[in-house]
C-alpha cells in the first residue's frame, strides 16, 4: 500500500530528528454494521515498527479507535548514515513496508 515517509535527507551527528509516517489503511473497527445488520469484520493495522540500520528504535501498537490512514510521528537521534525501515502489520495477514535513507555528517 502507498505510504508517505518524511525523514530529513541530511542531519548532523547527534541531531534530534523527527520522522513522520502516513500509510493507507481503512482501519475498519469491527464495531460497525451494514445496512442489513451484518457485522463488518475488524480489519486494522495492529503493529508498527521502525528500524534504524537494523536496530528497532520505535514500536507502536494500534487499536480499533485509530483513524483510517494512520499518521505516526516520533523522534530519534541521528547517529550514522543509513536506512530507516518501516513495517506495518495487521489483521488478515496484512503487511506493508517502506524505507528512507539519511546521510549523517
Amino acid at each position, binding site marked *: 500500500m*502507498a505510504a*508517505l515517509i518524511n525523514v530529513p535527507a541530511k542531519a548532523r551527528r547527534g541531531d534530534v530528528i523527527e520522522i*513522520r509516517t*502516513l500509510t493507507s489503511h*481503512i482501519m475498519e473497527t469491527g464495531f460497525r454494521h451494514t445496512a442489513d445488520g451484518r457485522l463488518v469484520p475488524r480489519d486494522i493495522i495492529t503493529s508498527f515498527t521502525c528500524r534504524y540500520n537494523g536496530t528497532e528504535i520505535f514500536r507502536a501498537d494500534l487499536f480499533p479507535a485509530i*483513524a*483510517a*490512514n494512520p*499518521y505516526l510521528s516520533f523522534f530519534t537521534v541521528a547517529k550514522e548514515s543509513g536506512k530507516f525501515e518501516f513495517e506495518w502489520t495487521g489483521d488478515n495477514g496484512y503487511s506493508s513496508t517502506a524505507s528512507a535513507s539519511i546521510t549523517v555528517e
Partner: protein
Amino acid sequence: MNFWRAIAVATLLAAAPALLAGEIAPEARRSGYAFMGPDTRAMQDDDTSNPGMLFVLDGETLWTKKTGSAEKACADCHGDARGSMQGVAARYPAFDKTQGRPVTLDQRINLCRANHQQATPLPYESRDLLALSAFVAHQARGVAITAGEDPQVKPFVEQGRDLFMQREGQLNLACTNCHDDNFDKHLAGAPITQGQPTGYPMYRLEWQTLGSLERRLRSCMSGVRAQAYDYGAPELVALELFLMSRARGLPMETPAVRP
C-alpha cells in the same frame, strides 16, 4: 426634485433584493481552506501528512498501468501527466461533443476507459476512480479555476444556478441559504463555508477517505432531508458546473483536507 428622488429610491429598492440574493463578489470569494483551523490547514499543506496524497500516489501508479481489452494505459495516449494534465481539472466539468452535455472529470475518465481502453467503467467513489481523478486534479494544483467559460456549457451553468437557488427537502432550504447568505456562521460546531469546490476530490476527516464533489453535494441534500440525485445525474453535474464557475479565479487545491 422630490419626484426624482422618489424614483431613485424606488429604483434602489427594486434593485436591492437582486443584490441581497446575489452572488459573492469575486474579490470576496474564499476557499473552504480559509474557514479551517490551523491543524487542518497544516495537514493539507504538508504533502507527507496530507492523506489525500496517498490517493494521488495510487493514481500515479494507475496512470501507467495497462488496462482493458485494448491493453492501454492512460499514459499511452496522454504521456506524462505532469505536462498533459496540467491545469486540466480547473476547467471541468467540460462540454463533451458526443454526449452533447458537460461531463465531470470522473465521467471523462470513464469515457476514456470505455472508448480508448475498452475497459469497464469504474464505479463512482471507488478507490481507483478517486485515485485517478485525484492524480489528474493534483496536476492543476495552484491553477485558477476557469470552468463554465465555454459558451456551450452556459445553459448548464444556468440550470445549476437554478438548482442552487431552489429550496428543497423537508427543511426547505436551498444551497444559497447557507452558502451565500450565512457563510462565516456556524452550523452546530462546524463553520459554514461559501461552498467553493476548490479541492476535489478531497479528504474529509469525517469520511476517513477521499470523496468527490458529488458525494459532498449528496450529503448536503440528505442534510436538508431531500432526496439526493444519483451519482452522475445531469442535475448533479449541472450543480458541480455552476459551483466551479462560481469559484472562478480561485486556485485549485486538490487534494484538499476538510473536517
